[in-house]
């Protein structure tokens, strides 16, 4: 019996093989893009559980939609579009989980260990600060900022992902970043005092 052919290494061939039913190629394709999909979902949804739900939905949608992918855009752009829609769907249907902490006046601080070996507080604080700041943005602004600053998509690609004009992309990113500046710096300056784009 002849051994199965090796899984293609370049992405176009991988996509073609996956579309033709090669399960190993599909597995490789999903694993290659899963980290970026999860990163987008984690930043847009803001918590691990919703991010995993959205990631799972995105991977399933990607598999189901693969036969229709025609290569006109980059595969990653198409995957991000699916992931973003999955996240926005998740945000729309999520229920807020109660935040539970130590009882008041307990007097015993919770030790949150960070097993990467770096200072506990700073890494956790950085992640929490970013999550909290992103959570203050409207979902549409958050998605635009994440696609730009996490996924490194250009404005045209983000416009394609979000199905909005490039000018709207530019506006949402700018307004999202401005709001993040206020949140992360603790600056109390009213954002309305900053110069804004002409109406």
């Amino acid at each position, binding site marked *: 019996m002849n051994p199965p052919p090796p899984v293609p290494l370049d992405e176009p061939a991988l996509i073609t093989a996956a579309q033709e039913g090669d*399960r190993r190629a599909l597995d490789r394709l*999903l694993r290659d893009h*899963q980290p970026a999909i*999860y*990163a987008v979902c*984690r*930043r847009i949804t803001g918590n*691990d*559980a919703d991010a*995993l*739900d959205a*990631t*799972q939905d995105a*991977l*399933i949608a*990607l*598999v*189901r939609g693969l036969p229709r992918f025609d290569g006109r855009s980059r595969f990653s752009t198409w995957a991000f579009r699916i992931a973003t829609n999955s996240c926005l769907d998740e945000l729309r*249907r999520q229920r807020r*989980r*109660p*935040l*539970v902490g*130590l*009882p008041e006046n*307990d*007097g*015993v601080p*919770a*030790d*949150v*260990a*960070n*097993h*990467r070996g770096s200072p*506990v507080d700073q890494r956790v604080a*950085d*992640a929490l*600060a*970013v*999550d909290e700041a*992103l959570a203050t943005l409207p979902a549409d602004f958050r998605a635009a900022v994440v696609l730009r*600053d*996490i996924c490194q998509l*250009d*404005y045209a690609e983000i416009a394609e992902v979000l199905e909005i004009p490039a000018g709207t992309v*530019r*506006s949402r*990113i*700018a*307004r999202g*970043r*401005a709001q*993040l*500046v206020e949140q992360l710096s603790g600056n109390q300056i009213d954002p309305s005092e*900053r*110069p*804004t*784009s*002409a109406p």
Partner: protein
Amino acid sequence: MTSEPPPLTDEELSAVLDGEADPDIAARAQVEPAARARLDELRAVRLALGRAPLPALHRTTIDGLIARALDESDQPVVAPPVSRSGHTATPRWLVAAAIVALVAVGLGLVWSGRDRGNDVSTTASGQLSNRDKSGAGGGADGKAQGQSSPERSSGSPRGGQTDAAAADGTPRSELSPQSTAVIELGEYRTLSDLRAALKTSFPTDSPSANGLEAPSQATVERCAALMTQVFQLPNPAGHIGRARVAGRDVLVYEFEAPSARDGAATTFITVNEPQTCDAQLSFERTPG
């Protein structure tokens, strides 16, 4: 006399940052002090987003995500069941991760059970199910043997068991084979009291809390998987317990892990709300 141009807007400066601005705007942003200052602020936000750490997914979780997606490729397109509130009853990644973890645990239990000649628990309560072997007396015998499982769990070396599970090719789950029994830790007034009880060891002789419903294996494994992932723990949970704090059930997990402070071997403990797996308390127990 030409009037000064209006100050650059956030939208223009943001576009400069992204390389999407007109050349004249980009040039102005480099020379005007206010524009440069604002550009620095926007750039700092972009850097913060890029540098903020993301929890790494455990291999088991990733495998579960991929497996579920691959399985969906074989199924006809059917809308997933949605509850009345619009929220799916069981997160799909949990189903996938639970399937992978349960298969791994089941395989590990079969192999270890053959070697030891013991019946091992498949329920989180620690009560053994001996119906297949003992017939009519299975219920009572199961409960009696269930009470002995905590001693077995606490006494056996965790590292060896988990290494054995990995060495024979079975995928590691977030639970070591002998840790699937949930130890009853009793009732506590506050989390502080629970922490004090766990400070030196995992109590195995606490009185059982009567009338409480045992957590399901899926719940136990789901929270274990999430804690392993969130805290990037290298080993599965060695001990698992259930306690009642201020009238609310919590799950308690013990993991062997390097200390975040100095890398020395330590025991990391999390206390979790069963439904959401939210960590209500976590700390290191330093030996000595």
